């Protein structure tokens, strides 16, 4: 992938785009089946201090741990789940299985477990520091105190048991010293007499450790995990809540191209081929329920893929089959593009369905032309008829009924995002399809009910189309689409921005300012709108307003050097040398090799009408760099150096360099410039510096 810009400030738009593309590409590749640090085995390191090694080091015992699965592991929660005196683990994984319970089979030595209850701190006593102080009877090696803190939430996305566990390695007796959160003095809890292992509860302020009786739980023998019969169905039938539009594809019926869908009508669309036996079986079964399908309000449309078979095909055998079997449905042939288009749109419904098309496949389409149910593989008419009831059902109800595993939802269903499908088509490298699909969204008929295409979707589509037009310099169309976008999504600052940019491109600066201001009212830090409005202000000769916008952009994008240079020049032209100088100094520091910037800054510093701003010596140093950088062959640079020298009082030097500048310009040079240079030379010869007038 592309390398990261080194700072956000320095990042140009191009760099950022390349870099972000890099991230997107990386994830596209993963989504298309590649691994990234996959099959890595969990690691376990044993603290070797307990074995009497000098110092504390760890030994990697991953192979001996029983935890070294190649899972994509995520969370780890610690608990003595079976209460046998050692720490077991609950793991969460990205890969299968999503969870694991790992029992610690280590023959436990002695242990102490502590349950806390706060009375003057938070009741859970989160933040309590617990010190296990070994008794005097402990063996020499076990006389070191152990400290634990009770915590809620650590590791990665994990929370461990609030029962604190202490391995005790043969310690005898002792005291538990607790520093409760927010309390300065610790509280001591002597261990109950004779307790070597076990669990105690400590209540703040009692000073007494109460023993808890927690018998160990010998787990039953593991039962085999039952398989799930419904699993294949889950893969093969997808009921859709966030419905994308069915793509605007055509079939050829008796030599004539016609849209697959009839507007305003729900449909069952099927992709089949006559050489595919399951397809043929499916269609003959549907034929026998043609009346019921029609009564359910479904128009059955058969999209034939015969020509895409392993050996191609004329479509003749499809026609023969339909006639011979008296299949009563609307049928036509489709080309590869149409079938691929359908398959690709259907594939976007689930996040990673990246398989080649397998026929037959079908879908139920609602009366808005949106995909409501997908069938991968054959489906019975009975199933279709049952699903027909879902087509108009409220999305909340559909979601709670059809999810493979049900539960409650706190958030409303995410509205359908056909526009997101278009984005995926682009990502997959199909811009023409994406464009067609967006136009389809834009032109889709207005409908009613929970699945009607929202104005937001239409607005998003209009916005996308406007962006395409702008890129292609088709400004009138850009204005038209942008106006639609503004109408449908008046709260989207991007829509207003596009309209402003399009108008500006057509020369309507004041119109542009109006709409860009609307955009900025909605989102004050939208740099694109600020930049364009600044340019529009320049068009209307409102330099002050332009500068306000540019200065704001520079606050947001301090690394935008080109804009900074332009802004400096505007200040300079507006006679505010001080502001120009501030920007140019910043740029000179950042780009010391830029002769242009060095030269302009030198000139302003040497010749400003404002004596408070002039800096002769700084100007001279800069001008020297300018002259050296141009190999002493640039009359402008020498002119600049002369002005700076004159400002420092070095008139002989100024005269010499001004003379040289005039020589370099030559008699053939611009007569106006030559005249100016000669006047300056005279000024320097008279021992006076050159200052611009206000």
């Amino acid at each position: 992938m592309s390398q990261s810009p080194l700072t956000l400030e320095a990042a140009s738009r191009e760099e950022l785009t390349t870099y972000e593309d890099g991230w997107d590409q990386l994830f596209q590749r993963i989504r298309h089946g590649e691994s990234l640090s996959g099959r890595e085995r969990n690691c376990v390191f044993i603290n070797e201090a307990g074995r009497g090694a000098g110092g504390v080091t760890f030994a990697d015992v991953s192979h001996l741990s029983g935890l070294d699965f190649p899972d994509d592991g995520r969370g780890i929660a610690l608990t003595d789940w079976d209460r046998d005196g050692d720490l077991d683990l609950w793991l969460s994984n990205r890969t299968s299985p999503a969870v694991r319970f790992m029992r610690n089979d280590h023959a436990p030595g002695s242990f102490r477990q502590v349950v806390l209850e706060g009375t003057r701190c938070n009741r859970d006593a989160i933040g309590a520091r617990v010190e296990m102080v070994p008794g005097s009877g402990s063996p020499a090696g076990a006389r070191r105190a152990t400290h634990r803190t009770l915590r809620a939430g650590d590791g990665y996305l994990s929370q461990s048991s609030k029962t604190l566990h202490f391995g005790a390695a043969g310690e005898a007796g002792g005291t538990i010293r607790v520093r409760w959160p927010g309390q300065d003095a610790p509280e001591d809890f002597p261990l109950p007499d004779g307790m070597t292992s076990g669990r105690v509860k400590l209540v703040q302020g009692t000073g007494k450790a109460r023993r808890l009786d927690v018998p160990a739980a010998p787990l039953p023998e593991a039962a085999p995990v039952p398989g799930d019969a419904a699993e294949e169905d889950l893969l093969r039938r997808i009921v859709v809540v966030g419905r994308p539009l069915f793509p605007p594809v055509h079939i050829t019926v008796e030599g004539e191209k016609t849209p697959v869908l009839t507007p305003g009508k729900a449909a069952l669309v099927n992709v089949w081929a006559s050489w595919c036996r399951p397809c043929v079986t499916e269609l003959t079964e549907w034929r026998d329920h043609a009346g019921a399908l029609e009564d359910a309000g479904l128009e059955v449309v058969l999209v034939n893929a015969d020509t895409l078979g392993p050996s191609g095909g004329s479509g003749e055998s499809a026609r023969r089959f339909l006639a011979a079997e008296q299949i009563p449905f609307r049928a036509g042939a489709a080309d590869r593009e149409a079938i691929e288009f359908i398959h690709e749109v259907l594939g976007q419904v689930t996040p990673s369905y990246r398989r080649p098309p397998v026929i037959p496949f079908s879908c139920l389409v609602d009366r808005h032309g949106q995909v409501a149910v997908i069938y991968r593989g054959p489906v019975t008419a009975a199933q279709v008829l049952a699903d027909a009831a879902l087509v108009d059902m409220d999305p909340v109800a559909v979601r709670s009924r059809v999810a493979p595993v049900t539960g409650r939802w706190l958030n409303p269903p995410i509205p359908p995002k056909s526009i997101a499908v278009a984005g995926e088509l682009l990502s997959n490298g199909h811009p023409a399809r994406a464009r067609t699909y967006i136009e389809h969204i834009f032109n889709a008929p207005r409908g009613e009910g929970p699945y009607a295409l929202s104005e937001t979707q239409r607005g998003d589509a209009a916005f996308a189309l406007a962006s395409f037009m702008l890129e292609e310099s088709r400004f009138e169309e850009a204005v038209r689409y942008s106006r639609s976008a503004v109408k449908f999504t008046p709260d989207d600052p991007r829509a207003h921005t596009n309209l402003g940019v399009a108008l500006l491109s057509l020369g309507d600066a004041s119109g542009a300012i109006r709409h860009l201001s609307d955009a900025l009212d909605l989102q004050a830090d939208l740099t694109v709108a600020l930049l364009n409005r600044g340019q529009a202000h320049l068009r209307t000769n409102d330099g002050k307003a332009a500068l306000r916008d540019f200065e704001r952009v520079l606050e947001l994008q301090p690394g935008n050097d080109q804009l900074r240079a332009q802004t400096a020049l505007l200040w300079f032209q507006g006679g505010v040398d001080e502001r120009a100088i501030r920007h140019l100094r910043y740029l000179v520091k950042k780009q010391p090799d830029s002769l242009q910037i060095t030269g302009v800054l030198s000139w302003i510093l040497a010749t400003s009408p404002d004596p408070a701003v002039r800096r002769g010596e700084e100007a001279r140093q800069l001008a020297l760099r300018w002259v050296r950088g141009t190999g002493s062959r640039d009359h402008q640079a020498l002119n600049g150096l002369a002005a700076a020298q004159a400002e420092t009082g070095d008139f002989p030097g100024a005269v010499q360099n001004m003379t040289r500048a005039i020589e370099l310009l030559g008699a053939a040079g611009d007569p106006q410039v030559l005249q100016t240079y000669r006047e300056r030379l005279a000024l320097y010869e008279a021992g006076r510096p050159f200052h611009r007038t206000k």
Partner: protein
Amino acid sequence: MTKHFQMATRLVAIAGTLGLSACGDPPAADGEDPATEPPAAQPGSPPAVAEPAALEGFAREDLREDPGRAAWQTEIFNEAASGQLKKLAATIADSPVLEAKSLAKFVGEGFTTGSLHPDRPPAGATGAEGFAAALNELLGGENAAEFKIVSVQPGEDRVHTEILASLASRKDGKSWQANARWKAAWTMADDGPPKLLALEVPAEGFTFHERATADPMFSDQTAAVLAGNRSYPLQLVHGIDHWMERMEAAYGMDLVGNHGVAVADVNGDGLDDVYFCQAGGLPNRLFLGQPDGTARDVSAEAGVDFCDYSRAAIFVDLDNDGDQDLAVLLNATVVILANDGTGSFSAGNRYPIIGNATALSSADYDDDRLLDLYVVVRDAELGVLGNRLLGSPIPYHDANNGGPNVMLRNEGGLAFRAVTGETGLDRNNRRFSQAAAWEDYDNDGDQDLYVANDFGRNNLYRNDGGQFTDVAAAAGVEDLSAGMSVSWADYNRDGRMDLYVGNMFSSAGNRVTYQRQFKDGIADDLRGLYQRHARGNSLFESVDGGTFRDVSLETGVTMGRWAWSSVFADLDNDGWEDLVVANGFVTNEDTHDL
């Protein structure tokens, strides 16, 4: 993905007096690639299909082409040598006693090796015989081996590598594992795979651990605990990839599959219970621990079977009434649920978070007896719900353009107020954070906070009376690496809390960043930063309660791979904290690893 239909950013040029060109952004260039022609259908006769038939010519696009790879000669060598080592590992695992002839293909002429255990005398022989003798001396039972090349340096007539070698064996009621950083010289690979010429096992970095049992420390008893529940086979035995093909994208499901786990005694019966967070469309699951050690799924009746996209949850008593309330991340919202004392929950206040909220950690930061919540936020965008997988950190190794983390103060009555700014926690808090954990690291009685950041330096916020200062730099724990996990414990039992940070170990990163052409022209210190970025997990030893010493390398705990939860735990009951690391990013069907 997000960039499509970006703003068109066309600007009209204005003339600059000195020829400076107009500023502005170039137009978005999305979607201008020519459409790729679908490959032509292949000839052949129609098969007599009984199963649903695949259409021909729709081969998956091969996205594997990676122009960057070819630039790295050493990476090409690495691929060849790694292939050899993979075969070597398989050969070692195949038989308890290795024979010279099975090793001949891995060693070149005149191969020499010392003992594979630096404290033991060398076997003496050379060639394949010598290699077999050395391996047999160390192993000799049911063997396992794993190798990872972490450094490649081409020499005159050979290539020098450093290999993380992990060898284990179990036999006669014992098991042992040796880990070492082998220095290995290889033949140049012109024709055929490279072969080993010399092997040396330095004492530095060598560890050898023996257990008095041949059984592993842990056994998988998931089925024993969960098999009585329908949700286990239906839902939890599957990974994200299973659901990615079956569940609607709009539900909120992403392939990175970052979903957490929380353990607490939810119903107050003295037994721990466990709650799993799940991808959008799959309900979170609460299992109550039973006296016999099994667990019962009560997700629905407890009112916590949320299908919304959920990353993390924690159970804490937020109103000090003696039961465990629940704070759970659903989509990008913190939802507070009150426990009625029996383990039944009702949803209360919701706190929407700007950006992609990742994790939760709780402590009473202002000592008012009410537990507060720190919300860790990674991206500025909504992640899966915003149809984007990861943000674009800039710069990659030290970003500060992520989503802002949020401190929610408990105001009583299960209501919270964001106090990030007023507590000073708004500083340096947009670094693509992944994890946080509280600890009184300076032993002054209040709760300090460490935040692990994916693309920026980490934070150690010192708490001074409820006001926080990021002291990570001064304390020596910025840990410039891809932080994923935080764990505190006193690993050396000196009474001060030490810090283990889960990071990304990348053997590719290790190899590549040491090459000259890596970001040629960047300053050495920056190169150092990149190298550090790929080093792996970090262990920081608290020195004086204020500063820390980086002891990661000397204690040998960096190699946690692409680590997520990396936590201290006394696994063997000896009173000393061990470490356990869950790792691996994305495993796909394709074994080729990017």
